């Protein structure tokens, strides 16, 4: 069963949303500025480790091993979290997860307010809206999430949800919406950070309930790991009496030792740091230190449906670093909102349609929101072959849309590509189609059903001889 995730209200399919975003020159400037800076820094941080590729392959192997044995590791995680004094809940979908969390919050008598650490899982389930419906006020404490919440905006990046706002826009927002902001607050980032610190301080100190996600959950020790920068995570994980963590089932790692791989890969890939400022690791409850009640909510919401697809399931290896967003030419121009989901960019284009299913126009269009340039695959710290998954999902999207001409072309090309003999014959036939090309060597119109392609674009005329035929004839020019 696929899950549910809020599609942003009235969200058009990707091409329409992207067209509007590309016309917003301020948005494009902000995105280009931020992603260009982080690309350079990430490359430097990665180059520092000579064994990056070995780390990457180890991470891929560990995650694939977990996915192949997911049930075993989840049961082991449950056992060890319980042994350490935590309570484990299971949620089939977003609504079930939200209900579990809301019930726990109300039972904890937290005065109707909860402090939250940035979490993709609770973005995905729309937890904040669900809590508000039950009379609970969620307070986002991550700086970028706070910017999004104060501006009544939507997140547009996995790591930096307010990446579409520059410092001047954030300064305006704080002066307008933060009653306790200093009167002479400027747009300088250190001043903006200090304003956020002052604004949230009393919330942290009086919070009774904290809600988080987790970057990793270690099966053999029952440990949860949250990686962060600001210290808002430490505040939410440590000061409240009750802690609730909502974690996707794919976040489980077999063993404590695996952290040596993922703590090396994640900070360098996401913020281009050797290590992020703060990482909190805990298992269950520790008497006299931190919350005295800990609840882990294991979330499916379409993950097991994704697991059924042998090609698409690699998206479940994702550790949410956002390196693929930062290198993507499509993301850089269209921005995160165009993807219509909390998961934007290349990973979003393969994750959202699998978690939600391909039935809506936005999800059916997402696998096409890419030029297949492959930069995302190259930077992915868990080696998710995003282009491969995109092409695979395009075929599934076409199937589900019953788009017959394209479907028959996919089928035919599969048949042709499976045999070298058939391919050679087809290439000879295609070379003959040169005779329908126009003067500039472009084919303007093909006969139906191929006219579906040439209705909206020209096709280049094929060369007189295929590469394979040329190679067979000349051996690449060798005598």
């Amino acid at each position, binding site marked *: *069963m696929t899950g549910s995730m809020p599609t942003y209200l009235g969200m058009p399919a990707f091409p329409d949303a992207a067209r509007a975003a590309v016309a917003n020159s301020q948005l494009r400037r902000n995105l280009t500025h*931020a992603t260009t*800076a*982080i690309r350079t820094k990430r490359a430097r941080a990665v180059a520092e480790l*000579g*064994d990056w590729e*070995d780390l990457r392959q*180890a991470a891929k*192997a*560990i995650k694939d*091993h977990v996915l*192949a*044995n997911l*049930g*075993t590791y*989840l049961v082991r995680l449950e056992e060890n979290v319980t042994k350490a004094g935590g309570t484990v*809940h*299971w949620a*089939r979908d977003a609504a079930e997860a939200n209900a579990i969390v809301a019930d726990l919050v109300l039972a904890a008598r937290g005065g109707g307010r909860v402090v939250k650490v940035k979490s993709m899982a609770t973005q995905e389930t729309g937890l904040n809206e669900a809590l508000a419906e039950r009379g609970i006020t969620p307070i986002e404490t*991550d*700086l970028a999430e706070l910017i999004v919440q104060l501006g009544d905006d939507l997140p547009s990046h996995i790591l*930096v949800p*307010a*990446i579409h706002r520059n*410092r001047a826009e*954030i300064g305006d927002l704080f002066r307008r919406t933060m009653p306790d902001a200093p009167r002479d607050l400027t747009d300088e*980032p*250190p001043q903006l*950070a200090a304003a*956020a*610190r002052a604004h*949230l*301080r009393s919330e942290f*100190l009086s919070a009774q309930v904290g809600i988080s996600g987790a970057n990793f959950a*270690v099966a053999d*020790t029952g440990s949860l790991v949250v990686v962060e*920068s*600001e*210290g*808002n995570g*430490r505040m939410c994980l440590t*000061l409240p009496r009750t802690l609730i963590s909502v974690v996707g*089932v794919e976040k489980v790692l077999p063993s404590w*030792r695996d*952290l*040596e791989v993922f*703590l090396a890969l994640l900070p360098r890939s996401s*913020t281009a*740091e*050797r*290590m992020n*400022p703060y990482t909190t*690791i805990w*298992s269950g409850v*520790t008497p006299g*230190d*931190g919350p005295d009640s800990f609840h882990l909510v294991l979330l*499916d919401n379409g993950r*097991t449906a994704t*697991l059924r697809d042998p090609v698409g399931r690699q998206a479940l290896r994702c550790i949410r670093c956002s390196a693929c967003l930062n290198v993507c030419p499509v993301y850089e121009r269209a921005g995160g909102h165009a993807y219509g989901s909390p998961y934007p960019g290349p990973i979003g284009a393969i994750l959202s349609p699998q978690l939600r299913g391909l039935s809506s126009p936005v999800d059916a269009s997402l696998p096409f929101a890419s030029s297949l340039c492959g930069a995302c695959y190259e930077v992915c710290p868990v080696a998710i072959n995003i282009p491969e998954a995109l092409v695979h999902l395009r075929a599934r999207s076409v199937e589900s849309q019953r788009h017959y001409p394209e479907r028959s072309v996919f089928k035919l090309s599969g048949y042709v590509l499976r045999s070298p003999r058939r391919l050679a014959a087809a290439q000879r036939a295609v070379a003959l189609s040169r005779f329908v090309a126009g003067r500039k060597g472009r084919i303007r119109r093909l006969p139906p059903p191929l006219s579906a392609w040439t209705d909206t674009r020209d096709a280049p005329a094929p060369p007189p001889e295929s590469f394979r035929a040329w190679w067979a004839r000349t051996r690449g020019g060798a005598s």
Partner: protein
Amino acid sequence: MSTAREEILARIRAATGVPAAPAEVDAAYAALPRGYLRAHHDADIVALFADRAADYRAVVERVGIGELPGAVAGVLSGVSRFLVPSGLPASWLAALPDEERVVRDDPPLSALELDKVAGVVTGCAAAIAETGTIILDHGPGQGRRALTLVPDFHVVVVLADQVAADIADALALLDPARPHTLISGPSATSDIELIRVEGVHGPRNLHILIAG
């Protein structure tokens, strides 16, 4: 009606097939490729730790073990009141002029009370040279987690022999049953234009004394 747990586990079985026996799973895990290095440096890892921690704008000082009490007193000289967790070696505080500014977490202070204390001085469980990271396991001399979080100034003593070359060696020293905090520099954010800025919710000043 099946429970959510049963149903999710059934969906997983439907996707991956019948689960392998635990011993087989463990054997497959043990055979996973781990071609990466356990450490990226071996020479003078204490100097490397000092450099890398300073890179993230922690203030780093190296002192001889005999100079430690004087260095601790010096760092704390301008701090109005500071927490001393139980189990901190008394010798580290031997050069303090008096006990007047010392705050003890006994009985445990509320978060609001902790917020009125300017600083905290602790030891640590281990440190990582490659990344400039200190690791607290919140055992004796380190205090419960809130003590090193709420006050704005954290002074941490790292003994030279606590410095591990890399992440793998450091993690192997720890007891996973304990809570842990990994700290690399003062609190920071990259949330505005993806540029790192120091000083958000965690301590804005981190002073590391490397002894020995």
